[in-house]
């Protein structure tokens, strides 16, 4: 028999385990590719597109024509595709792994939502199209609005706000309009310490003075302090529930009653609605306005993946002041858009318009798909599983990390830890950077401010127990290194495309524009 004695080695060489680490000539590490800036790859004298010669025509720019080359790098299509694909591989995404950013609700975005949003009847329409040609899209806006009203127990909804803080602005403008309508000049908005950081900014933007209300040691609003501050100058209170400590504000009804009695309104920041959807209706707790982050609770993409969307629901008292436009169903079942021309008959008290058109259509379609595909039982389970997962993380880590409100009972959708107990010189930032080496996006750090060196973990309901265990294992390992003072943690991340950055230098001497290296310019000139 003849034997083929050619062939490739099929097992590692015997001395391979002892090989020292070495630097590659390219800087690449196997499939971890280094990538230059697009200006360093491209060439201003090259183009990837074959354009026809421009027709000769007299310039009408009156001397404003560009005199110098525009300096954009020219790349072939393949070079361009590779550049951005390589960069995307250095990124972290919810489709790669658990994204524990507290307060952000980085849950899975179901692919069914995407399929629906891409239907041409929703994706390829124009906001100025004749109304009779977009009845389906208007029906989606109308039906989603109805579900948001039902889920929150409120009276009306404004669909157009573009995201959470924009929704806050909408709610506070409605409060101001309602007060002005009754000739009431109130100047103060109360904001508890446990509220989102955007709340005081919103109130100040609308022209109110902001006053803090302290939290009690258990992380919830100090109701007595709040009641003591109420009076004829208080326009309202902005309260985040569940709050940024991951706790449910149990006294919200008591607070609402007191605020209403004093003539004010209650704004609830609904960013954390995911933890209570299907369980609690904010309307039953006396809330007058609340924004809902569709991109959090109802799983529409965010964080670079898509725009936010922040519809606002209103109580009976505030609903008449909601902003234009509205979708309204007439008696014959046709849907109409109520805008400036038609508001007098329907919404004469509306405070006006916040955006040019109707809101984020793509997000409406995704959110409605999510609501309908989950059903009432599914949404209830969303809240329950989100809370269960967060408590599993809290109880699995509280022996290695300080949980300042761990004794206050179960948390809601997020688990909060502090830097108390880390070795001298070790910080929350070291844990965050160490987590990058372990292959996870870090949790939210240094927020909320009420806890020193805060670490806020929101696993969301879409993570399995196996995925949570992996994350918990990584957190435990990094936390123990920080408690034992492992110096290698100070220089983490070790395995990321870039090591720890000098944020101070970056802020003091920011380099915002690429300039051609001087040496190469000199060479080119020769």
């Amino acid at each position, binding site marked *: 028999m003849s034997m083929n004695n050619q062939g490739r080695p099929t097992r590692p060489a015997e001395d391979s385990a002892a090989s020292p680490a070495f630097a590659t000539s390219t800087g690449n590490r196997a499939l971890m590719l280094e990538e230059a800036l697009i200006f360093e790859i491209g060439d201003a004298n090259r183009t990837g597109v074959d354009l026809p010669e421009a027709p000769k025509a007299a310039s009408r720019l009156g001397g404003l024509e560009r005199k110098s080359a525009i300096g954009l790098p020219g790349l072939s299509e393949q070079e361009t595709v590779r550049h951005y694909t390589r960069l995307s591989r250095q990124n972290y995404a919810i489709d790669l792994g658990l994204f524990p950013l507290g307060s952000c609700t980085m849950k899975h975005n179901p692919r069914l939502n995407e399929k629906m949003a891409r239907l041409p009847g929703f994706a390829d329409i124009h906001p100025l199209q004749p109304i009779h040609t977009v009845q389906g899209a208007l029906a989606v806006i109308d039906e989603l609005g109805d579900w948001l009203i039902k889920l929150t127990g409120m009276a009306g909804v404004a669909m157009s706000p573009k995201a959470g803080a924009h929704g806050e602005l909408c709610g506070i403008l409605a409060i101001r309009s309602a007060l002005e309508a009754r000739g009431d000049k109130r100047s103060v908005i109360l904001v508890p310490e446990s509220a989102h950081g955007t709340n005081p900014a919103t109130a100040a933007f609308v022209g109110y003075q902001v006053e803090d209300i302290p939290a009690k040691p258990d992380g919830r609003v100090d109701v007595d302090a709040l009641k003591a501050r109420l009076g004829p100058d208080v326009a309202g209170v902005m309260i985040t529930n569940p709050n940024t400590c991951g706790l449910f504000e149990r006294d919200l009804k008591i607070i609402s009653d007191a605020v209403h009695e004093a003539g004010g309104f209650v704004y609830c920041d609904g960013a954390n609605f995911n933890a209570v959807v299907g369980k609690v209706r904010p309307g039953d707790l006396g809330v007058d306005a609340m924004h809902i982050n569709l991109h959090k609770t109802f799983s529409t993409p965010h964080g670079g993946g898509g725009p936010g969307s922040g519809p606002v629901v209103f109580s009976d008292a505030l609903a008449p002041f909601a902003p234009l436009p509205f979708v309204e169903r007439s008696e014959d079942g046709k849907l109409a858009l109520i805008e400036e021309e038609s508001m007098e008959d329907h919404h004469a008290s509306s405070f006006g318009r916040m955006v040019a058109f109707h809101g984020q259509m793509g997000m409406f379609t995704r959110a409605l798909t999510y609501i309908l595909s989950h059903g009432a039982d599914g949404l209830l389970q969303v809240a329950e599983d989100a809370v269960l997962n967060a408590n599993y993380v809290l109880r699995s880590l509280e022996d290695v990390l300080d949980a300042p409100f761990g004794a206050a009972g179960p948390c809601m959708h997020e688990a909060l830890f502090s830097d108390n107990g880390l070795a001298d010189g070790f910080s929350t930032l070291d844990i965050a950077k160490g987590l990058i080496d372990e292959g996870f996006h870090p949790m939210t750090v*240094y927020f909320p401010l009420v806890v020193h060196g805060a670490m806020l973990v929101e696993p969301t309901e879409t993570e399995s127990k196996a995925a949570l265990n992996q994350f918990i294992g990584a957190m435990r390992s990094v936390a123990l290194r920080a408690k034992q003072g492992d110096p290698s943690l100070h220089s983490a991340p070790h395995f990321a495309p870039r090591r720890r950055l000098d*944020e*101070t230098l970056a*802020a*003091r001497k920011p380099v915002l524009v690429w300039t051609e290296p001087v040496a190469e310019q000199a060479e080119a000139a020769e």
Partner: protein
Amino acid sequence: MSRYFTEEHEWVEVEGKIATVGITEYAQQQLGDVVFVDVPAEGKQFDKGDEAAVVESVKAASDVYSPVSGTIVEGNDVLADEPGLVNSDPEGDGWFFKLELTDAGELDSLMDEAAYKKFVADL
């Protein structure tokens, strides 16, 4: 020459009619690495408590209030290029501005060093 302090963590050093103002060691520690400072131009007038300067660190942006009323005679322009001076020498080379006092009596409401030390210790 005497030095006064405010509850907003500014210090005031008075020599004749001229007061030099900066932020305290405690303030720079709380702010962290300072990355940008905006000081007022010569000739600007401030009442006590007016926002006179801005200091930005990697953590936060804060207003610096004029602890006393007066007219600016000099801003510390070096801070534009070297904001780190506020961290390395907050109560010396890291001063923010000098102003000519309108009413020296306003100084009486400020704290002396001992009172400020106690104030910080109680925070």
